[in-house]
């Protein structure tokens, strides 16, 4: 093996990356989000999407949904590293449960006239996007769905006068009667 002079082993592993969605139930206390984000940046993990909001205000519980990519070993590490944080109650790998539902909401602003405007409306209808603001030269669509559907919609809007997009990031929940 030929690595440059170093006291560390420099060769990277080349296992294929996987994308996982993690639901993390945390105590809603100051700094908890900073802890989670700091873990990801400090250890070099990826965040594809991150959604956080208080879900049970009486118990001060928040739910963080993180979409991340990494090798299976890294994904396992991320879960363990999250789980050992003091204010973290539970970490559930929604991808491994196999039966989770993921949704994201996006607001998409499109500007244009004539055929473009008609085409945008027609596509929005096909994607079940709602018009939530309109002027004579623009629309704001609201679209809900899984991330790939939203990305697809945005791609279609691009040539029709896409101005800007605001996405919430992914929220996920398991199917069936059981909670996390």
């Amino acid at each position, binding site marked *: 093996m030929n690595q440059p*002079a170093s006291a560390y082993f420099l*060769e990277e592993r080349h296992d294929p990356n996987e994308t996982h969605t993690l639901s993390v139930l945390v105590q809603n206390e100051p700094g908890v989000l900073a802890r989670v984000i700091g873990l990801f940046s400090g250890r070099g993990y990826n965040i594809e999407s991150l959604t956080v909001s208080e879900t049970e205000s009486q118990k001060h519980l928040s739910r963080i949904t993180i979409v991340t990519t990494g090798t299976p070993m890294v994904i396992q590490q991320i879960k363990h590293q999250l789980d050992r944080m*003091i204010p973290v109650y539970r970490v559930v790998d929604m991808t491994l449960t196999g039966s989770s539902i993921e949704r994201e909401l996006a607001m998409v602003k499109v500007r244009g006239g004539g055929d473009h405007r008609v085409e945008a409306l027609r596509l929005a209808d096909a994607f079940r996007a709602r018009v939530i603001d309109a002027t004579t030269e623009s629309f704001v669509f609201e679209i809900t769905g899984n991330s790939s559907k939203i990305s697809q919609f945005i791609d279609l809007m691009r040539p029709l006068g896409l101005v800007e997009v605001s996405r919430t990031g992914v929220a996920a929940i398991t199917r069936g009667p059981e909670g996390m």
Partner: protein
Amino acid sequence: MTDKSHDPNQMTGAAMIVRALIDHGVQHVFGYPGGAVLPIYDEIFQQSEVEHILVRHEQGAGHAAEGYARSTGKPGVVLVTSGPGATNMVTPLTDALMDSIPLVCITGQVPTHLIGNDAFQECDTVGITRPATKHNWLVRDVNDLARVLHEAFYVATTGRPGPVLVDVPKDVQFATGTYHPPRKSDVHISYTPRVKGDATQIRKAVAMLANAKRPVIYSGGGVINSGPEASKLLRQLVEATGFPITSTLMGLGAYPASGPNWLGMLGMHGTYEANMTMHDCDVMLCVGARFDDRITGRVDAFSPGSKKIHIDIDPSSINKNIRVDVPIIGDAGNVLGDLLQVFKAEAKKPDIKAWWQQIAQWRARNSLSYRKNNDIILPQYAIQRLFELTRGKDTYITTEVGQHQMWAAQFFGFEEPHRWMTSGGLGTMGYGLPAAVGVQVAHPDSLVIDIAGDASVQMTIQEMSTAVQFELPIKIFILNNQYMGMVRQWQQLLHGNRLSHSYSEALPDFVKLADAYGCVGLQATKPSDLDGAIKEMISIKRPVLFDCRVAALENCFPMIPSGKAHNEMLLPEEATDEATAKAFSGGKALV
């Protein structure tokens, strides 16, 4: 409204802090005063249950508390002020995090209404120390203070131990609130470290151990952290199985160095027999260690033919670097107890005679040999003599970081746990001297020696003043080669012998320096002087700076070259310039 003025639990935040320390059995606090902690210092002044050790730099307080914690098993407590006091604690906190040392650090903070205002001596302490602690808290309400302090002690000392920090604004220290003694509900219900190992996994592990042909036990700092009982159980397990045992730097002393099954330390500067045994084994039992990169060498060639059992209290240590076959999550002592019980009940000592024969051949290579010299003190020889001359004494050893640290690990035999304090994970130069201060505070009548290097010791040399003030008779045994030896060794081996800034041009005269601090300075320059000088050092009941002039260019072997596997070690007799150049990729010529 009831009159609360006579309620003994009504007190100021500052009083609560001292009260909580007493309630947690704290006898010593290491610290340095400053504006934002003055109310707490005022409380300390007015009581006598907690003794405060005044250091000369906050980093010194942190490492002293680490030495204290590691040599006693109790949490080390640090009290420092806001701003620079807190930022100076970042190194010891990180050091304690890497080596799983329980520390409780209390920092002062500017008053609540000034937070975020760039006030004098303000910094975002909880933000800065978030990745340097197991957990930290900013207390904004005096009525939360008791709960947070109790929780801090609980978090620091349970599960995988580690440092915690409680940041207390000055107005909260002044405010009056209700204190309560420690109680169960003070702890986050989300924090539930697992102590007991899974019985099925333990059975699986025992079956693997019982059928092993070429087993090895690889133990680490987790066994020490778990308490003396864990070391006892480890020894019993070695006895019951007859297996060879090696240990990480952090785990030295859990199994006695004089024990028949001891292979020596493993890893980058471990013994040949330890590393070869790890490489060729068929079953590896890892207890309280974490497959760190100084241990594994190149991961894809690490012990390729073995089934691995990993006992660790921290699930995130499992499968982090090396994939293991049987993970057991739990406290090292607890799991070892269960494992031993099942092994004794269901298995018998496997016949591994052939394996021991193989190991004997590796041992015969004598990988720690060095050429003797009658004119110059060789550093290995100095440690050997120090070890021989302190044998049978109640000795604690701390070290700085570098060649001297590795030689100490190789040549000083540890018979008991909690006797060896070194910065393993973070590799903090300047750790040893203040750590010795902390150890000596905890063990006032013991012989506490910091095996130091001339470069490392200067990073925290000011703590000699602390040792003098508190009459702590620590011995600073400096292997003085005038180089940053380990840096130079790597420059020689990896960077074409270009010794970029690894030579100290202007070293102080350590004997005169000792004099200036009001302690004793000794020097040895010849092997014939060494024993006498060491004996003198031991007999002096005051702090000593011992300037041991050693061979300047000696290097630390054996060594696993970078990017190589355990079975590609470079042994001292093979470490000719040519062989070294070849072993290290890049193959640069050595002068």
